[in-house]
């Protein structure tokens, strides 16, 4: 009795009871399809969150910020200098584990005006050109400022699309791309030339929402109104994109000369950086790189630890936690439906062997061993399960289509080979487990009893 014969017999049995087999297979189809679809949804969600994390620079990006001086060093408070441009040079010289170092000087309440329109940037920053790489910016129109602009403290700025939308009109409303490069805007009364504009940053969800609205403009009832910030397809990482689009970069030197030097207390300009971003070469060496940076900064800060590192690790962990949670809850639901499918198979196999007691008796009388009966039933059960597995994989694609139709603005679900393999193997395992009990029963059946059975 070879395996091929067993499989043939399995198929014949299934074919002989088409409707019954279909219903049984359906249980497995649903189980496998929901397992694959669930993992595709979670994968889509994960992709969205990871994209947001990468969009802000990834885990290798670390912010060095001011911190209150520790209690033990309180008496040295007047010696503390804070983070200055000197730290940047020192780090460049002495911390080889760092790839990029970007100083940042921010100005809160920057008001940018043009033609009586006003834009308030939350993210008005004086920095170096390498901020482009640090913060994963892409200049779509014009150029980023360069070292010469920095050296000359040129009045140039590179802006995000939010400024363009507010001051020049958005392409959605105008129906065409608006390029503000070359225009002059006034920042807190100082004229600046726009030399570059970043691309429009948006999450997968936002993009889909935008496309959906382009196809079917939403009917607004009642008076025109702004609908507020919250809801609009922002998702967990939504604010990252919004923040990024609000960015207005000017050279660090310009910030210093045009704004900072005039705003200090007691006529003393404040030389401190708002923050200092570093990017490490290798995330695996994050700890070492931070230690190296700390050593350097303790030198420049005269041993006063008035700085702290803020990494994105928390966010990465949070992403992992929410992914794990989603995976777990989805996985449990899918596993339960697979289990129910397996119980269905077991039920049918038990009914089937009861129905075929006589056949089992005949087969044994003409030479079938207990083990060959066992294998036959297991194979039949596995054939049902694997048919369900294959059909379930196909059905999962349809299920995902359905989910996309039901909720078009969610992250794009992604079917992974791993999920498919896992689901298929699960269906095979379910087939074996569900067949186990019926197969043991069939194997143990005494041929004499079985032949007498009517």
């Amino acid at each position, binding site marked *: *009795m*070879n395996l091929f*014969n067993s499989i043939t017999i399995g198929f*014949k*049995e299934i074919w*002989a009871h088409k409707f019954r087999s279909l219903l049984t297979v359906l249980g497995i189809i649903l189980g496998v399809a929901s397992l694959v679809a669930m993992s595709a949804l979670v994968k889509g969600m994960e992709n969205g969150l990871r994209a947001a994390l990468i969009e802000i620079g990834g885990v290798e990006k670390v912010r060095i910020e001011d911190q209150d001086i520790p209690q033990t060093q309180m008496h040295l408070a007047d010696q503390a200098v804070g983070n200055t441009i000197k730290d940047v040079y020192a780090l460049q010289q002495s911390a080889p584990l760092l790839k990029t170092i970007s100083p940042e000087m921010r100005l809160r309440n920057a008001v940018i005006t043009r033609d009586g329109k006003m834009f308030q940037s939350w993210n008005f920053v004086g920095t170096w050109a390498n901020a482009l790489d640090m913060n994963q910016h892409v200049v779509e129109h014009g150029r980023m400022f360069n070292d010469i602009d920095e050296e000359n403290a040129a009045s140039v700025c590179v802006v995000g699309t939010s400024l363009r939308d507010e001051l020049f009109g958005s392409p959605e409303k105008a129906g065409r791309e608006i390029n503000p490069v070359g225009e002059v805007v006034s920042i807190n009364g100082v004229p600046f030339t726009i030399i570059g504009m970043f691309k429009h940053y948006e999450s997968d969800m936002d993009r889909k929402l935008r496309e959906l609205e382009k196809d079917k403009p939403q009917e607004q009832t009642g008076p025109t109104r702004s609908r507020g910030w919250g809801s609009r397809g922002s998702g967990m990482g939504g604010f990252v994109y919004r923040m990024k689009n609000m960015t207005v970069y000017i050279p660090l030197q310009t910030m210093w000369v045009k704004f900072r030097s005039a705003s200090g207390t007691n006529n003393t300009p404040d030389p401190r950086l708002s923050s200092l971003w570093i990017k490490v070469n290798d995330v695996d060496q994050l700890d070492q790189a931070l230690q190296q940076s700390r050593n350097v900064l303790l030198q420049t800060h005269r041993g006063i630890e008035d700085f702290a590192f803020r990494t994105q690790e928390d966010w990465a962990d949070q992403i992992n936690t929410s992914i794990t949670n989603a995976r777990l809850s989805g996985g449990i639901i899918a596993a339960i439906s697979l289990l129910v499918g397996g119980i269905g198979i077991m039920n049918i196999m038990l009914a089937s062997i009861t129905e075929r007691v*006589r*056949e089992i*008796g*005949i*087969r*044994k*009388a*003409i*030479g*079938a*061993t*207990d*083990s*060959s009966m066992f294998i036959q039933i297991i194979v039949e059960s596995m054939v049902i399960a694997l048919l369900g597995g294959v059909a379930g994989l196909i059905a999962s694609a349809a299920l995902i289509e359905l989910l996309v139709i039901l909720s078009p603005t969610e992250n794009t679900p992604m079917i992974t080979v791993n999920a498919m393999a896992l689901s298929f193997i699960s269906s095979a395992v379910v087939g074996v487990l569900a067949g186990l009990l019926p197969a043991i029963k069939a194997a143990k059946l005494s*041929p*004499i009893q079985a*032949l007498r059975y009517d």
Partner: protein
Amino acid sequence: MALVELRNVSKIYHLGGEEIRALDDVSLDIDGGEFISIIGPSGSGKSTLMHILGCLDSPTKGTIQLDGKMIHSLSGAELARARNQKIGFVFQFFNLLPKLNVLQNVELPMIYSGLNARDRRERAVNALKLVDLENRSKHRPSQLSGGQQQRVAIARALVNEPKIVFADEPTGNLDSHTGEAILTLFRKLSEQGRTIALVTHDPEIAAVTPRRIEIRDGKIAKQVDATLAGLDRLERAADVSSGIGVS
């Protein structure tokens, strides 16, 4: 040495604390090429005897030798192999698999003996020729008459060239005319040198075989052997001292 040697075989069942001796110290020899019948009323133990001879069941006590091999102590898988290779069964209710066609039914024992497809087919066709049914090989059992079904069952029993064929009430489910034809077929097969044991309750059917063994209450009550030279129709009382019979 006889083909089958049963020595002091007992089969005891326990039903609700009560001991039932289905077979009680039976000894019996069957030679190769013999055509015998085992007769007895229902409940006499003849079916139990057939099951033990046919390797479907193991005795509680005693030894059985089949074709030079002790089979009373074999494992389940070894018994299955013995049934497959050395024994053919013909049942009262034909016991063909309804989902398989005639050819596939006849091929079934060879599937369990691991023959390749071409040999299986060739031997199955030959076995069907033996019972004059080669032109029905694609039919389902349900499309055949009772007599034809029984002939398919006989072909299936013969296809692995067994040492001995057991026929359990082979005519019990057939009308007398068809039953006659089946018995004639058995006689023909016997003349070709096959060892055949008919199990029946009907003395008329048993009459076709030269040797008859009558079972009552789990014991051999009487043996008739018409093959003993010149002793046709002689009823020989069981002789205790010969070791063949029973008191």
